[in-house]
């Protein structure tokens, strides 16, 4: 029951955030809102598929990667959003802290493959490494600056939170406790929804109307 409520809430949150992003795009015609709408759209569709499957057939998809495709597409759009919000100087910037991203990502991927599917794990972790690589770089690059820099710093911080919560979510799914709220998996899933909403707020601050 908790899993069903969790999935429904996740779908509703991403759907509302997607509609809001689409409205912002229609009003401002700014590219980041288009990418954000695509991101939420993919998450909402993947969530809808997963929820419906669970609701109608009382099990989760076993054979092929349909929901995973939707989630990975969402990550791709988030990556494109990071690219859009960065400038040439930021992209050329390098700092040692960025290497934290592949180190953590590869270590966790090596652990996840012992539990889950190899192909999906590699794909998902690659996207997480890319996202965190760009956000750590952005966070260091815009560090200590006010105005626009501060807004972009908040956006990069939101992406780092998103990636961290995703890692924790996958880790907690390896140790399934129960189908009740005592299971840390559900805590992380609700936190993930929070970070997804924060993404919209930080992008709105960074881009304006």
């Amino acid at each position, binding site marked *: 029951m908790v899993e069903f409520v969790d999935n429904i809430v996740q779908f509703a949150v991403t759907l509302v955030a997607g509609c809001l992003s689409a409205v912002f795009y229609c009003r401002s015609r700014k590219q980041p809102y288009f990418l954000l709408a695509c991101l939420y759209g993919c998450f909402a569709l993947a969530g809808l598929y997963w929820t419906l499957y669970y609701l*109608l057939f009382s099990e989760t998809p076993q*054979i092929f990667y*349909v929901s995973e495709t939707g989630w990975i*597409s969402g990550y791709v*759009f988030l990556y494109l959003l990071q690219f859009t919000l960065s400038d040439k100087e930021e992209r050329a910037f390098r700092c040692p802290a960025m290497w934290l991203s592949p180190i953590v990502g590869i270590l966790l991927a090596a652990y996840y493959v012992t539990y889950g599917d190899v192909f999906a794990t590699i794909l998902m972790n690659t996207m997480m490494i890319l996202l965190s690589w760009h956000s750590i770089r952005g966070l260091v690059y815009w560090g200590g600056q006010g105005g626009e820099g501060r807004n972009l710093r908040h956006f990069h911080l939101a992406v780092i939170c998103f990636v961290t919560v995703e890692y924790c979510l996958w880790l907690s799914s390896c140790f399934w406790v129960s189908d009740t709220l005592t299971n840390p998996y559900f805590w992380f899933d609700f936190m993930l929804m929070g970070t997804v909403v924060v993404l919209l707020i930080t992008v709105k601050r960074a881009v304006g109307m």
Partner: protein
Amino acid sequence: MTYIENIFVCIAAPLLITAVCMGKSHIRFFFFCFAGMGACLLSAYINTFFVAYYDANNFNATVEIAPVVEEIIKLLPLLFYLYIFEPEPEKIKGAVLTVAAGFATFENICYLIQNGAEHLGFLLIRGFGTGAMHIVCGAIIGYGLVYVWQRAWLKVAGTCGLLGAAITYHAVYNMLIAYGGKGQHIAYVLPLLTIAVGITAGKLLAARPK
């Protein structure tokens, strides 16, 4: 057993002759129509392969394998067109929608051959529903491609993202169909509703000053 390739030949032959008679100005339409039908044929083979590989049943094939395979195969002729001919953005939409229509038409014909054509009412609803679903998936990719192919750095990642969105939409539709009952009715209405919303949103956007 359905001899799907024989059906393809029977449908393609008169269209091919028509294409030759109508001249160069209409060749693009027929080319994409054939591409759509060819994609349907190819995805039927690949679906069968994956069903055997994963030892999947009919339900798994419909809900989990077919959406992924069909959307990827449908995209291939378009990628060929985009990379080789580098068309104007306006031509992309037409190409994607024609491929989708060709795919949906061929799929409907195969469905009729396998399941009979006695119930006109049901077939009418199914025809519109499935046709509209393929058009919606085509529109997701087509309208998105127009946007992402104008920016070099968006091309690959953007196309993958759009493909993912189309696959998930297709999978949700197939799942509701596989469930049957009220789910099936919702599935047939869903793409028509999406098209209506899309057209309305498009008109509203066009009416707004840039």
